[in-house]
């Protein structure tokens, strides 16, 4: 079965990963979800480094769902790298976090996050969030061209 596309879920907490995958199952969704547990892994995946060199196996995602608090390279650092790399700068990156700290909000938006979603505590709200996200970013939103071309 060929999937419609793929989502990159960058999240280090196994419970949250399981909850998110569960929520996506509930929708249900015809997208492949690649789970990456650190900022390094996420960047390695996008740049096709190390075990992710096979683009057939690890295709570029349609959207990145990015946690902020990550071990090593933080979500914000990863976001910065993505948005300053010409071929990835249009790739939608949605921050998905339980932090509502002003400094995280400011940095998130300033470094080019396309959206900032709160990770709700209650599963009901969590489901709603994931559903809304999927509906908007995977259905409504028109995907950007991922190349380095500029307007003539």
């Amino acid at each position, binding site marked *: 079965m060929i999937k419609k596309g793929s989502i990159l879920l960058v999240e280090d*907490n196994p*419970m*949250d990963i399981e*909850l998110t995958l*569960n929520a996506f199952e509930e929708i249900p969704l015809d997208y492949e979800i690649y789970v990456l547990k650190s900022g390094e892994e996420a960047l390695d995946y996008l740049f096709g480094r190390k075990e992710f060199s096979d683009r057939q196996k690890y295709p570029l995602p349609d959207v990145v769902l990015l946690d902020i*608090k990550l071990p090593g390279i933080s979500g914000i650092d990863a976001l910065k790298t993505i948005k300053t790399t010409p071929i990835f700068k249009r790739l939608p990156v949605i921050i998905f*976090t*339980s*932090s*509502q*700290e*002003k400094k995280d909000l400011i940095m998130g938006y300033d470094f080019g996050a396309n959206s900032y979603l709160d*990770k*709700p*505590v*209650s*599963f*009901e709200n*969590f489901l709603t969030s994931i559903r809304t996200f999927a509906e908007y970013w995977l259905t409504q939103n028109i995907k950007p061209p991922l190349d380095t071309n500029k307007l003539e």
Partner: protein
Amino acid sequence: MEKYNTSDKDDPKNQRLRQIAEKQASLMEVPDPSSLSPEDNIRIFHELQAHKIELEIQNEELRNTQEELEKSRVRYKKLYDFAPVGYVTLNEKGLIMECNLTVTTMLGINRMELINRPLSKFISPEHQGIYSLRRKALFETGRPQVCEILMLRQNNPPIWTQMEMTLGHDLKGNWVCLCGIIDINDRKEAEQKLQKINERLSVLHHIDRAILSAKSPESIVQAALDGLWKLVPCQRITVIQFDMKKNEALVLGSVVKGKSEVGKELRFPLTDIHLIDEFRHGKIRIYSDLLEYPKKKTQILNQLIAEGIRNVVNIPLMFKKEIIGTLNLGASVPGWFTDEHVAIAKEVAMQLAIALRQACLYDQLKQYSKELEYRVAQRTRQLEWANKMLEEFAYSVSHDLKTPLRAILGFTQIIARRYAKSLEKEARHYFENILEAATHMEELINDLLKYSKLGKNAISLIPVELSKLIEDVVSELANSGVTQGAEIIIDPDLPVVEGDVTLLRQIFINLIDNALKYRKKDTSHRVEIRAKRENKSALIEVRDNGIGIEPKYQEKIFNIFQRLHSQSAYPGTGIGLAIVKRAVHLMNGKVEIESTPGEGSIFRVKLKIARI
């Protein structure tokens, strides 16, 4: 012939006159007596007799005149000799031709030693120039000359005089200088004394100013030493400070042979100072000659003697009856220091004591304020650190606590959704308990976050229309269902207050939610929101007819996590009123409670009315 002789016949003067007369008469042509008739002889004799009588009368008159003259001469001479002004007559060469007694007493020199000697011999060397200049000018111009001249005296210090020279001539018609000499020594001495006093005052004043403008003890001592040394020249001056606590003396500074040294930190034990107790009472000690001091000498005194010091003056530096040190003078000549020296040193010591004390207090104050600053800075750092820790704590609550809670809630709900049917009733009940507890925990965490976030963002005080804000709050509460079964009355005339919109919303959400929550059973619940205006502030009242609060709890309810009821009776987090209190304080307002158990509560929030 005998009877015509005058009684002065034997007078040598008269005899001489007789001889001259006879000689001249012998040269005259004498008529032959034989040619004279007896009538002629009688006539001539008569003539001669008449002539003689005439001469005698004339002589008598002359004698009388001479007597008169002699009398007046003596009188004049006395006048001349005893005049209050000395008179000297000088010839053109400046030799003394004549002088009165006043001059001789004035100079203490015999008249014989003055006559025929130049006046300049009796004039002090530094005034020779001016004297000869004036004398020359007198003879050249003929105009009177006046000058002040210091004249030398026998066996006495020089004397100040005022010389008034006028031109005259002697009996032979030669030009002479008539010189009046007035003793102005007293005036001059008084003048000099005054000048000296003035100088002393000005130096003292200078010392005062230098002392007072100096800030450190070193610069004060420097100023005092430099100034004092000018007024009281001597071999050594030292300023010593006593430290009674450490039982130590510190040499603050010294002038030795005109060279001053300050801040050398030379210390020695107080016990080395001779009879220090005398100083404590402010007594000045003077050794006019150390060698003659009979008692056993201390090491310091012996050291001074070795340096050649003989005359020593110690003046205690007193501040409010407390001794803080000594000012010490030393001279190599016994009895060198005069009363005036001591008086000057005393004055300087007085100023020095005050200034040193002030400097000491100033230093202490500086030290205290430094310490205080340091402590404040330290405390501030601690508080900042604590605050940061608290913020980090709140942050970790928001993230780290929420994450496991999300897992608990999430998986419990997944089980409830997917496996509820396969669970036994008891298990289902426990799952519901878990859900309920976890949901409450979520509320707690959210409220705690709200509380810790208060004031983290900048507060902007702007005019806020309360009626609009309260309406929004009530409709928000209505959406969540808490208004059900209650009557809410809103004052149509709520004021426009000065406040922060976010904070005001937090306040009224919590107050109205509270007012709605604590209901009595079996009565219709009512919540009223009203306002009173007092000068520039508004009192917003949120009143309910609920269960009320016992007086002993009324103060406590604003504390965080303070709950009065069980979760099952009235659910809540115990954070709401703490949020209210903090938000009100952040806007410089006040919140009060008035409550009667069983009748209801009134919460009053005092806010500033906006100036429009």
